[in-house]
């Protein structure tokens, strides 16, 4: 099969379109023909050399496609079904997995990180990951869902416990997590303030449901938030940018508000230095109810 693979870490130029062996289908797996695979920042980080990535490597966490064949032990799935893949890898036996909290499994990983992912034509995977999708969704749309909608859902509901009437600040409304977070917060009945870096993206954020928008290159986020909220600050910040925005995010919170993090796309290193840098300050002010890293993805 054809795949995008890299044999060394580096810039986009290390990505090679090449022939690789078809995956061998185990009796307890389903074989998926990949029709669409969405990109995430994780793909860029892996390509640049994230610890644990083994070379040569095939990226790709968000997959939609067709079931081609199922192994002898697989029931409930049949060839020809349109599906998307749950973007995670886990043991499926431990207490956390069996309770539905696979993200807490000690073997947890994201598809395409420690193992090969979906930037290829065929993928053999456990049937627990294979989820049928309705005909109304295209393959491209289905592939655009799993990682970012799961992450944004976990941040807003799993961690921040968003409630109707709350005000949520979504950084980078045009990002994958951003487009999901705007919609999930609106669905929960919250008021949404989204930031973006261009007028076009601000317009698109409003079309998705954002009530207020801030151009984060031309305006100071915390000043605008104070104007919008009447100096109160927001109840929840969805912070997935990191170093470039973290201070503004903290300043935008109301006392007792909740900041939830994931990703840190402006700097991977910042996700490691936040705790020592920011925790003492946060503790010192005794304002912040929760500092809740959601992890790379859930």
């Amino acid at each position, binding site marked *: 099969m054809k795949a995008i693979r890299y044999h060394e870490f580096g810039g986009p130029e290390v990505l090679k379109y090449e022939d690789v062996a078809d995956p061998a289908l185990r009796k307890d797996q389903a074989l998926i023909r990949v029709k669409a695979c969405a990109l995430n920042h994780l793909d860029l980080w892996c390509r640049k050399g994230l610890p644990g990535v083994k070379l040569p490597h095939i990226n790709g966490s968000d997959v939609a496609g067709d079931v081609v064949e199922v192994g002898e032990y697989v029931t409930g799935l049949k060839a020809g079904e349109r599906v998307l893949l749950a973007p995670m890898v886990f043991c499926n036996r431990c207490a956390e997995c069996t309770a539905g909290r696979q993200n807490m499994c000690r073997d947890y990983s994201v598809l395409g990180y420690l193992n090969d992912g979906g930037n290829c034509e065929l993928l053999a995977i456990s049937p627990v990951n294979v989820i049928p999708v309705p005909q109304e969704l295209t393959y491209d749309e289905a592939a655009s869902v799993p990682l970012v909608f799961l992450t944004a859902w976990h941040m807003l509901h799993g961690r921040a416990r968003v409630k109707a009437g709350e005000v949520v600040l979504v950084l980078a409304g045009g990002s994958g997590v951003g487009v999901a977070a705007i919609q999930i917060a609106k669905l929960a009945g919250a008021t949404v303030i989204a930031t973006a870096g261009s007028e076009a993206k601000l317009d698109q954020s409003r079309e*998705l449901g954002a009530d207020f928008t801030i151009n984060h290159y031309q305006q100071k986020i915390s000043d605008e938030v104070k104007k919008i909220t009447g100096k109160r600050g927001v109840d929840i910040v969805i912070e997935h940018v990191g170093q470039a925005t973290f201070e503004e995010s903290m300043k935008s919170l109301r006392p007792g508000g909740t900041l939830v993090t994931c990703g840190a796309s402006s700097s991977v290193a910042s996700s490691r230095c936040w705790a020592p840098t920011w925790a003492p300050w946060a503790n010192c002010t005794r304002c912040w109810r929760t500092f809740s890293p959601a992890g790379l993805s859930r």
Partner: protein
Amino acid sequence: MGELHEVLAHVFSGRLKPVVDKTYPLREARAAHERLENKEQFGKVVLNP
């Protein structure tokens, strides 16, 4: 997986909408990476094998 199925129920019923920014043939993954790296996207950048 519990949360994934929760959010998928909303997507499958149309209450939450996936946002596709741009699609590329798989062989053009390099251009797709550059689009994401340069923050040009609104929504998801998708590769088609």
